[in-house]
């Protein structure tokens, strides 16, 4: 018989080992999936995890892509992790990402074609504000009416997607090309372009922002009362109230930070790699960032590594789609498996599995 025993203290070894084990198991199960699709599993795994960085044929294109894909993931995940630590579950970063992009693009399109150094900073502020505003909807509904922030924030993603489509087809459509959906290409509007800062590195302002966010979050969580209160509220809500933490304030702060960072990520994307407001602009960064946050153990430094890994699967996924005709959805399954295995493995951080002989009453 199998028996579960709660550990006296969570195992430190498994806390660190589990993310690696989850990656290994995902490769294994992913390999089985690729084999079932009739592809060579070894080639597919290599294409996803190794070729984007090490292959001579692909690396020149893929390497800069790594930072381009990872930066928004890290930026969003850092914000989400703060809320997750406090037990506040913002699942709707994707929506905040879209609204942030629309706010940023809106500022740019309003100034078009004027030059001006102040336009891009204004877009940054607008993007963060847009994401913040979108996150305030679940925050206020939760604090006022005790609604569940998981449901509200998630459902608002679909609202945001409809708004995005409406904008791409209506208000923000490029007036010079009325036949096509989508806004003007911001990459061709210098004052609003989030350009690469160093040629062929993929480093744009979003990468810089992600780095700053990581440092900011690290300092906050380890040195600041706010970080202490966040952890307190997540671990022992009653002790938090004893310590004078206001649950309402914490909900607003956590959803606000994660919303603003997701909005920023959306803004940097639409003004740089994405280029324009299109219906298919949202590519799931907001959801993948949830995986990044957990894989990084809700720790800002861990999130950097997890973000790079998941960024890699994006690029590798495109590559394997191109080279092996593996369906695009397979890569999402792949990312999902990663989270699935991690959560399943995390069970043994807190519990010990014991085999016992005979039945027990």
């Amino acid at each position, binding site marked *: 018989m199998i028996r579960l025993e709660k550990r006296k*203290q969570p195992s430190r070894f498994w806390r660190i080992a589990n993310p690696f084990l989850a990656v290994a198991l995902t490769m294994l199960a992913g390999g089985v999936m690729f084999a079932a699709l009739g592809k060579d599993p070894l080639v597919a795994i290599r294409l996803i995890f190794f070729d984007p960085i090490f292959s001579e044929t692909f690396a020149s294109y893929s390497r800069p892509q790594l930072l381009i894909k990872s930066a928004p993931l890290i930026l969003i995940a850092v914000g989400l992790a703060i809320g997750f630590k406090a037990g506040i579950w913002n699942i709707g970063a994707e929506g905040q990402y879209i609204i942030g992009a629309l706010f940023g693009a809106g500022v740019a399109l309003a100034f078009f074609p004027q030059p001006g150094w102040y336009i891009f900073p204004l877009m940054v502020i607008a993007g963060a504000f847009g994401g913040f505003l979108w996150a305030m909807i679940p925050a206020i509904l939760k604090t006022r009416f005790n609604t569940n922030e998981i449901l509200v924030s998630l459902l608002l993603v679909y609202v945001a997607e409809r708004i995005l489509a409406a904008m791409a087809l209506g208000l923000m459509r490029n007036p010079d090309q009325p036949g096509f959906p989508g806004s003007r290409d911001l990459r061709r509007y210098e004052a609003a372009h989030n350009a690469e800062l160093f040629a062929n590195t993929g480093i744009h302002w979003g990468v810089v922002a992600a780095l700053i966010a990581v440092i900011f979050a690290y300092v906050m969580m380890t*040195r*600041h009362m*706010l970080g202490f209160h966040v952890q307190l509220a997540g671990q*022992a809500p009653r*002790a*938090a109230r*004893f*310590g004078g933490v206001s649950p309402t304030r914490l909900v607003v702060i956590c959803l606000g930070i994660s919303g603003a960072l997701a909005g920023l990520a959306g803004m940097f994307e639409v003004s740089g790699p994405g280029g324009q407001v299109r219906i298919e602009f949202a590519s799931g960064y907001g959801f993948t960032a949830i995986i990044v946050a957990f894989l990084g153990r809700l720790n800002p430094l861990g999130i950097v590594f997890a973000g790079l890994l998941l960024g890699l699967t994006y690029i590798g996924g495109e590559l394997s789609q191109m080279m092996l005709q593996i369906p695009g959805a397979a890569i999402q399954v792949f990312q999902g498996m990663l989270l699935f295995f991690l959560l399943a493995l995390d069970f043994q951080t807190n519990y010990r599995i014991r085999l016992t002989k005979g039945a027990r009453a």
Partner: protein
Amino acid sequence: MRQTLLRLEGLSKSYPGVRANDDISFEIGEGQMHALLGENGAGKSTLVKMIYGLVRPDAGQMILRGEAYAPAVPSEARRKGVAMVFQHFSLFDALDVAENVALGMENPPALRDLAERIRTVSEEYGLPLDPSRLVGELSAGERQRVEIVRCLLQDPKLLIMDEPTSVLTPQEVEVLFRTLRKLSEEGTAVLYISHKLEEIRALCDEATILRGGKKVATCDPREKSARELAELMVGQLLTPPERPERPFGEVVLEVEKLSLKSNNPFGTSLKNISFQLRKGEVLGIAGVAGNGQDELLLMLAGELCAPPGQVRLKGAPIGDLGPNHRRGLGLVTAPEERLGHAAAPDMSLTENALLSGSGRKRLEKGGFIDWGKTEGFAREVIERFDVRTPGPDVLARALSGGNLQKFVIGREIELDPDVIIVNQPTWGVDAAAAATIRQALLDLAGKGAGVLVISQDLDELLEVADSFAALNEGRLTQVRPAKGLTVEEIGLMMGGAGDMHVAHEAAE
């Protein structure tokens, strides 16, 4: 000499790192009232769990009426005539009395017959119970009767009772004792677990005392003084707390006609509460659990907000201020639940020192935490209050109850408050630690702070309090000087005595 009912021979049980029971032997006679005495952690629970078939001994054997007895499961123990009433009731609020009783039986009869039997048995033993009432509506004393009646229906030879009086008023205790004496006269033995010495001296004819997992003595408790028993239990000489006579100063904390709805659907709302606490005064508030103690503490701590003017600290209205604001003004609290409320279980003692000390000890500047200073503060508390722990990096949940309580109360005392409010300061704490905590509270009052102690332990309140009041269903009685109060009067203040008198009359 009466016949031996149960003989324990060399029972031992170890858990990883602890020897819970070490070679324990004694006998319980038929119809005997046998007390099992010991501090928390002395091994009482492990021992009775072995007798009741919840835990298997590592070594030793038990003999019940001349036959080897080794129950593998509680149902086997029950079949052989051993019944147990636990300290924490296992009853379902949403079911009625008869249904609850039926759930605990091996072969319950039809509910209608059972209801009849419950009525008969409960009347016979002076424990009136209406089988059709919902358990959720019963008082703690009545719930205990359900558990006892459930045991009696199975006609036990040995009834084990684990700390039965901790939830009862003095009058309810009297009723329980009469029942137990009647059982004993009829030949049912009772193994009575407690650390309340006066009770044991009043009730039992033999006592076995455990300390640190070993048996230290078997004696007749009526021949020993309470103090002698306590010293056997603790293994050291106890000094009662010193309480210098002192005049009280001006009023520091005042609550006026305050009514407040509980934030918990099963809680007790506060009704029209008024009292004053003066400098240097220790005000004790008694009451059976669940009569508004938690709400009173939350309201005073600032976790529940009240109309500002009805709670005043040194004359200033504070009713609408949060906990940290109140700490800043000099009011600190130590809630009943150590783990999870007064301390975060998975955080270190240093982090827990920050929890309430951040403001008054200036452990943060502009929101940034001075971890060095915080650790220093934690060390200070650990040293001053003799908290037994390897160091301030240890998680709060790794500490024993007594040590964590010393840390929590010590932390608040170190904040040098004008008013301190504590709820159940020595609940589940060993006698030595309890003495330290009580002395620390008295010392603080000696320095001129107002001290408010909420407790269910009357002995504790009589030991430390200058003034006395009781909570009953959210109402606070008038505050009276503690000197000269009799236990009888206190019982009446705690209320709930009315139907108990009726119970006696019905029984006699």
